[in-house]
């Protein structure tokens, strides 16, 4: 028996020693980490792109990519990244979600690209992509894709509306307002009680009028609130947080924002929207309209072929507003600050970042994973001349928004907490409590500001 134990311990020791491997983060290579799983189409497209770089540049440092899986908003991958930061083993290039760039820049983990990157190359990105990667006037991140949100409606339901209401719905190349959007939902609600329409299949099936995906918030997907709804503030001349990323007083509670939140609350107060919606409410005809992310399109096309979905632009709060405001943003490549600016490897690292995000890459990513290009020249790869009119319309709207009106989410070192608190303490409360009165909404916003100010104290220098 003693022999058996000694043998077992010997095996464990040998196995442990054999497990030792060479350090991978060597200076003769450029290491990239991404949040896309190796088996995921996104992970495969990055790996293919790296292979193409290595083949095209045999005389330069070779690039090694390691793709990790993220869960939800990024846990798993972000834990791994933070562990690497603690152990001073940050990869040369890695990916971050757009809104998180500011906090990593503030802590000195990532380095600026200014002074290294070609300005003509930077100008090839859409405004939203540059805005997303810029902190305190310095560029840190290059987005490899953008995203978008539009308004979708069920054509079968809309056909039942009176002509004067139908006229409120714009064509795919016209702007419209939240007020008009609200009037349409109000008219759809009336169809549900109108004896002439209430028994028609498309109306009878309705459980709510508009789907805001607010039920994602209690599930922990807090970011949906900031992503979907800050355009209400922007298009009314408001902001979530001041340009310093930390000041909230007289910004988050500005009259423009309160007005926008009252408009949002009206949908819930009148039961046109629900805090907890049925799953896939719009897809299954249970909701007549939806504030719909770009991912709706492939789902609707592949799985709900009988649904006649039409798409119009994201509405403005103030019809006269001319700035950018539509939802945008996604993950982006950044470089580690470990390498000094004058280190020759730094230039090569930035060259690799350009390779991973250039026009050719953007087009490849669109074909591989349906990623919306974040570069002006590549947006045209989105095919809007297919034999599916619903597809063409949806992508035409999103193409327009990406090129012309997309705006990056707020830049703040305290963004994760800001986003979560905004979602839970303002948006979810308004939706769950069906609030539309100004005073209550003001109180929610005030409480939120107090809470955020306590947290933001630590960032104020």
């Amino acid at each position: 028996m003693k022999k058996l134990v000694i043998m077992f311990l010997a095996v464990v020791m040998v196995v442990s020693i054999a497990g030792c491997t060479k350090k991978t983060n060597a200076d003769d290579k450029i290491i990239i980490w991404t949040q896309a799983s190796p088996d995921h189409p996104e992970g495969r497209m990055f790996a293919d792109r790296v292979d193409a770089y290595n083949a095209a540049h045999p005389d330069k440092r070779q690039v090694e990519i390691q793709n990790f899986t993220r869960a939800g908003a990024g846990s798993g991958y972000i834990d791994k990244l933070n562990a690497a930061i603690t152990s001073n083993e940050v990869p040369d290039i890695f990916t971050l979600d757009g809104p998180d760039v500011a906090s990593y820049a503030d802590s000195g983990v990532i380095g600026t690209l200014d002074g290294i990157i070609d300005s003509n190359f930077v100008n090839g990105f859409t405004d939203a992509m540059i805005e997303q990667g810029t902190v305190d006037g310095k560029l840190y991140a290059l987005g490899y894709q953008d995203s978008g949100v539009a308004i979708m409606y069920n054509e079968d339901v809309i056909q039942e509306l009176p002509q004067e209401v139908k006229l409120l719905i714009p064509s795919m190349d016209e702007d419209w307002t939240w007020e008009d959007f609200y009037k349409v939902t109000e008219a759809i609600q009336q169809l549900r009680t109108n004896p002439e329409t209430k028994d028609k299949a498309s109306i009878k099936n309705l459980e709510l009028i508009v789907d805001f995906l607010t039920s994602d918030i209690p599930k922990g997907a807090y970011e949906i609130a900031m992503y979907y709804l800050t355009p209400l503030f922007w298009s009314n001349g408001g902001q979530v947080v001041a340009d310093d990323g930390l000041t909230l007083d007289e910004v988050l509670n500005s009259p423009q924002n309160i007005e926008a939140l009252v408009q949002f609350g009206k949908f819930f107060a009148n039961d046109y929207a629900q805090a907890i919606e049925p799953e896939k409410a719009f897809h299954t005809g249970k909701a007549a309209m939806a504030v719909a992310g770009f991912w709706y399109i492939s789902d609707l096309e592949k799985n709900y072929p009988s649904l006649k979905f039409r798409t119009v632009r994201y509405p403005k709060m103030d019809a006269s507003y001319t700035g950018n405001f539509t939802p945008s943003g996604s993950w982006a490549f950044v470089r580690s600050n470990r390498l000094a600016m004058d280190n020759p490897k730094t230039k090569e690292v930035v060259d690799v970042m350009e390779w991973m995000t250039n026009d050719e890459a953007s087009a490849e990513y669109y074909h591989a994973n349906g990623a919306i290009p974040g570069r002006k020249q590549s947006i045209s790869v989105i095919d809007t001349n297919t034999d599916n009119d619903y597809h063409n319309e949806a992508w035409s709207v999103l193409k327009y928004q990406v090129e012309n009106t997309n705006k990056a989410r707020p830049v703040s070192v305290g963004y994760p907490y800001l986003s979560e608190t905004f979602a839970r303490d303002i948006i979810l409360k308004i939706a769950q409590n069906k609030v539309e009165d100004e005073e209550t909404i003001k109180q929610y916003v005030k409480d939120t500001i107090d809470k955020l100010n306590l947290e933001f104290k630590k960032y104020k220098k």
Partner: protein
Amino acid sequence: MNTKLKRLLFYLLITLLSLLFILPLCWMILSSFKIDETIYKDLGTVYAFIPRFKDLTIRSYQELLNLYHIFKNMFNSLIYASITVVIGLIINSLAGYALAKFKFPFKNLILIFIIALMIVPIEATILPLYLVVNQLKLINTIYGLLLPFLTNVMNIFLFRQYFLAFPNELAEAAKIDGLGHFGLFFKIVFPVSRPIYVTIGIITFLASWNDFLWPVMALSNSDLMPIQVALNAIFSDRYNIFTSHIMAALTLVTIPIIIIYILFQKHIIEGAARSGIK
């Protein structure tokens, strides 16, 4: 109330309770054989749980298996879980036996430490663990993945509780017959303690099978990825993966767990009752 009526009510209650747990499983399996549109159309109706054969299809399985190597990931998980169970049972039971039956200095202090460690969640220790494994140059190796979880304070404590009830007289008799400590443990204690081994073995297997965070931290080689990491990759694929694919993936991943429960259910109940897990 007569006995028959009592029994009827009892069976009615446990049938309802069983349905509460079984119906979601039925929904998941049935949904994996439907297209997305049908899944949501049937939601809230009896057809969410009862199959209509004309609606059933294996399309989601075909598409899922074309896109992801889910069986490879399941095989990896099976290997990792099996190694963790076998080596973990040996190490933890020996430690538990020592704490239950041996006299040595600071025994109670060690026991207090073990109990104290039970309340520390894995999330709190994951970063130091990564730093240690990284220092040992074991990141991206199977050893780095498995070694930290071979010992488990909870399992040591459960073994100790179980072995406390082992009769000292039996141990004395075995010693008189010439058995040493290891001989006594493996020839006498181990064979009569099967229920606790099965129970802890299953708990360990499930923990290893369901682990996501540590494999993501410890591995970057896609060929070595376990099933939970693959599942998260599948869930995040909004371009190709929809509800029916998710249900198909979950069904495949749940099958081994269900088989293990069915095979060992008698031992699980016995072990749980005798070690104080319940």
